[in-house]
């Protein structure tokens, strides 16, 4: 692919096929940590970091371990183990080398193991038969899209404190409806990149 193709590919992954709003991956933390802006940015950074690394490593696992040994059916179990181990490793390394970043991301890291966006992106990389470079770019761009949607959503949700919301809609219900309208807004990008 040329540089222009990559640019379209990245824009497509961030805006058009937004992993959160169009593909429904990683919704539990999306609703869980979006009540405040600072937790949302922390979570976004952690997701971008882990997804990119997980996408890279699971690609290598798939093509240098599972395919040669003919055990592709163990994909799910091996990917989740790679992700769980990776998250743990990142946590330990960060704690020793960049304690400031660790303190900022600390509590979000363990949560990421069960964020289906990470495993989802890793599986999409394989299903779409992306090359190694494509996988890295796609993982990074998808995670940036996730972060973007999460931070925008947190910005909206902070304003809810000032709004009068019907009692039955308080909390998660109004959050879901808001997410629906955000998804509608994002679907306006669908003409941007031809697929």
């Amino acid at each position, binding site marked *: 692919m040329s540089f222009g193709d990559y640019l379209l590919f990245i824009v497509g992954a961030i805006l058009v096929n937004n992993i959160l709003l169009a593909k429904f991956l990683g919704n539990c933390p999306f609703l869980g940590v979006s009540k405040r802006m600072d937790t949302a940015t922390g979570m976004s950074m952690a997701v971008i970091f882990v997804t990119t690394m997980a996408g890279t490593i699971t690609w290598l696992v798939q093509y240098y371990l599972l395919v040669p040994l003919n055990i592709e059916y163990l994909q799910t179990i091996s990917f*989740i183990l790679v992700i769980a181990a990776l998250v743990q490793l990142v946590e330990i390394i960060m704690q020793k080398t960049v304690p400031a970043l660790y303190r900022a991301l600390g509590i979000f890291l363990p949560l990421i193991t069960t964020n289906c966006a990470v495993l989802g992106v890793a599986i999409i990389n394989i299903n779409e038969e992306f090359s190694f470079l494509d996988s890295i770019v796609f993982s990074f761009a998808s995670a940036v899209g996730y972060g973007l949607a999460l931070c925008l959503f947190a910005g909206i949700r902070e304003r809810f404190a000032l709004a009068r919301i019907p009692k039955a809609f308080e909390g998660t219900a109004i959050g879901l409806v808001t997410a*629906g309208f955000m998804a509608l807004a994002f679907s306006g990008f669908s003409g941007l990149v031809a697929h």
Partner: protein
Amino acid sequence: MAFVKEFSKGLWDVLPPFRLVLGLCPTLAVTTSAENGAGMGLATTFVLVCSNLLVSLLRKAIPSKVRIGAFIVIAASFVVITELLMQAYFFGLYQVLGIFIPLIVVNCIILGRAEAFASSHGPIDSVADGLGIGLGFTLSLFVLGGVREVLGAGTLLGARVLWDSFEPFAFMVKAPGAFVSLGVMLAIINLISARMAARKRRAQ
């Protein structure tokens, strides 16, 4: 009676995904029709019951430091079994549900029940808990899928249920409709339980 109690709480008191706000991704993604919703729900139920049973049987053998890892491996093994079984017997449904079958492993409901219930209760109670929560989840997905299918395509389980000149809302079967209809259903359930609580207070 404990079996019935553990079973029935999943159908209302902790009904996922409304009471336990967990497992939202499959809820939103596969409920474009009632059939897909029910298929996803049943696959999740199978994994949940099996993983609850195994976690409960092994609860004394698993050291607490590595328990999360152990739960994930147990869940992942059953997900692989489900994947292979569905490929063999329900290939059409397997293709529709696609990536969300392997993603059952990161469905927070599975890990949540292993941690919150199965790791501290006996095998019979754990199976009851898994069955109740799983069937509650299936029912929720079926209803949500049904609502979206009727409004978004005018059909239910593939059969036409609305009048012929009905123009389906494409919105409902697309991504935004999933969020909005789940939000509205959650609000309705909140409303019903608030009414029930108020009635109970008056009765006392």
